[in-house]
């Protein structure tokens, strides 16, 4: 057993998984409160850029992260207005938002010129070869689980996603709760984008996320909207991506594209075996106060 090889593989898997973990936690929070977060991909992409902008402008990654979180929260608010305050079809808003974000981020990159195109220095703090982002990802999973299942506000959030009408009757402000959930969800999505551009690749390029936001969604469905299972799924999918890249050396005949399919095929298999996908009942339905 080549321990060095395995060690490198684990490190690569964690690197690939971290953005997925944050992204999927964002989706869990949003969907548990009743809002579809197809906009996860676009939010991650925007945050990947704003993280780089903030780090370069302030000269310090901590401030860069803060800057990006603020923008992510604003993004969440705007999305909330479009999807929650207005009775829009959340899937369509998400799709349009993602497309627009690809354009907006690339446009800002052009405006920023060479300064924005150059890489950011790698994060200085490391824990056992893993970056702070990776460690915080695992911590976040526990945090989100605790919040959703062991706290009062978490219960409120879940109730709004399960049965908005009953929650409203119980006196919970559905719109406000969902809005707050969306803001928090987008902040997590932003952390995912930042993990990608600041911790992993150290630079922003066009469409950096390349569909990883959707892999994060697959992890949520795979993990049945439970933060811990979802995080496990995200790590598995990160491993699948790491495996896909190494596969070229392992096997000349199986195209690496088949390995890249793994997260999606696994999700389909799980759905086929496990039966009814028990998601929050009211996800995607606009709530209008009668």
């Amino acid at each position: 057993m080549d321990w060095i090889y395995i060690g490198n593989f684990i490190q690569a898997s964690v690197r690939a998984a971290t953005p997925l973990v944050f992204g999927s936690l964002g989706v869990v929070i949003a969907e548990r409160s009743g809002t579809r977060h197809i906009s996860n991909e676009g939010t991650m992409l925007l945050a990947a850029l704003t993280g780089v902008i903030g780090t370069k402008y302030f000269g310090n990654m901590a401030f860069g992260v803060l800057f990006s979180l603020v923008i992510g929260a604003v993004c969440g608010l705007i999305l909330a207005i479009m999807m929650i305050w207005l009775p829009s079809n959340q899937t369509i808003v998400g799709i349009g938002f993602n497309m627009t974000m690809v354009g907006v981020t690339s446009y800002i990159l052009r405006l920023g010129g060479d300064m924005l195109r150059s890489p950011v220095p790698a994060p200085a703090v490391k824990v056992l070869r893993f970056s702070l982002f990776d460690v915080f990802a695992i911590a976040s999973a526990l945090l989100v689980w605790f919040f959703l299942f062991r706290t009062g506000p978490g219960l409120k959030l879940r109730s709004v996603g399960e049965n908005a009408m009953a929650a409203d009757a119980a006196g919970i402000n559905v719109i406000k709760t969902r809005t707050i959930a969306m803001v928090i969800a987008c902040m997590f999505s932003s952390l995912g984008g930042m993990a990608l551009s600041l911790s992993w690749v150290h630079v922003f390029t066009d469409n950096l996320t390349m569909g990883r936001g959707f892999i994060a969604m697959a992890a949520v469905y795979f993990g049945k909207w439970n933060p811990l299972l979802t995080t496990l799924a995200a790590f598995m999918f990160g491993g699948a991506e790491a495996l896909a890249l190494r596969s070229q050396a392992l096997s000349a005949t199986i195209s690496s594209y088949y390995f890249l399919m793994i997260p999606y095929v696994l999700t389909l298999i799980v759905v086929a075996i496990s039966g009814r996908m028990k998601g929050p009942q009211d996800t995607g339905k606009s709530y209008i106060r009668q």
Partner: protein
Amino acid sequence: MKKTLSLVIVITVLLSIVLTGCSSSTEQEAPDAKGPGGTSAVTSSEETKALKIGSMFNNPDPANQGGWDISQYKGMKALEDDYGWTVSIAEAIAYPQVEEMVVSYIDKDYDIVVFPDNGMIETWQDMYPKYSDTYFIMISSTATVPDNATNTTVYQADQFTYGSIAGIVMANMTESKKVGLIGGSPIGSVKYQFSGIIEACKAIDPEIEVSIYFAGDWSDTARHMELTNIMIEDGVDTFFAMTGAGDKGVYEAAAAAGAKVIGYATDMYEYAPNAIATSVLFDFASLYAQIGQDVMAGTIEQKVYPLGIDYMKLADFRGSVDADVEAAINDYVEKFRTGDFKVDYVIHEDILN
């Protein structure tokens, strides 16, 4: 009443937009002053006409990413400054949309259309016989020009020779005797290029191991980075990436590990000073300047011009390697140019698997 009012407002706005659209189109109806058809469709008229050149790239930002595209883009744009011509470059054009772009240029009476990418060969083959008033230039590794063509020229990059030069550089630079190649998609020109690298390495030092990986696309930076990391774990210390915008990932991974990267087609030093040791340049600047002069003088010929070793040179090393290594490399390259150093022409078909 209110519904009709809103309808009226909307229709007024629409009409004004349509009218502006149509009015601009009437400008194109003016006849174009072209010389009588001869061996060359583009002749220098009595007045020095400002030529209009149109091109398109698959790449969404060809000015700043992807070695091959940067080189072409800069070469073409330089014609604007040098000759005062109009150079229009479309970005992020998917291959099925190339034809539409070309037709747009033709409609606007562009004189020359340049296809900078192998992926556009089919469109080129379809279009140049149909539109004899426009001149078509194809930069490709494979196209051929039939004898009766009147309005097209092909510039064929000799990828094997290019690869050989890159191989010479890498073989001399590597200290671990492990060299890594990254391709975007497994396509034909990559095969020729990488074969050149393999054979050159073999000729210089048969013990050198060449690892080859494909990212599966041209722009996923994270994937490119991970592939580079895999090779670094394996002991590779010198890299070459024939890819697009994803090359940033290669530079990042290499810089972090202290490995060296050879840039593709353009002097990539300004984009990654920590990683780029040197670059093997394709001199598109000279090429386009030459094209410009040929077109102005009416001497451009309808044939395949090879872009061979005369268009290839090395960028400044900037002290990235020891003086003796640099001297050895330059020595080999000189011998390669004169033919004293030979590289076996062997194409490795299995590269693409």
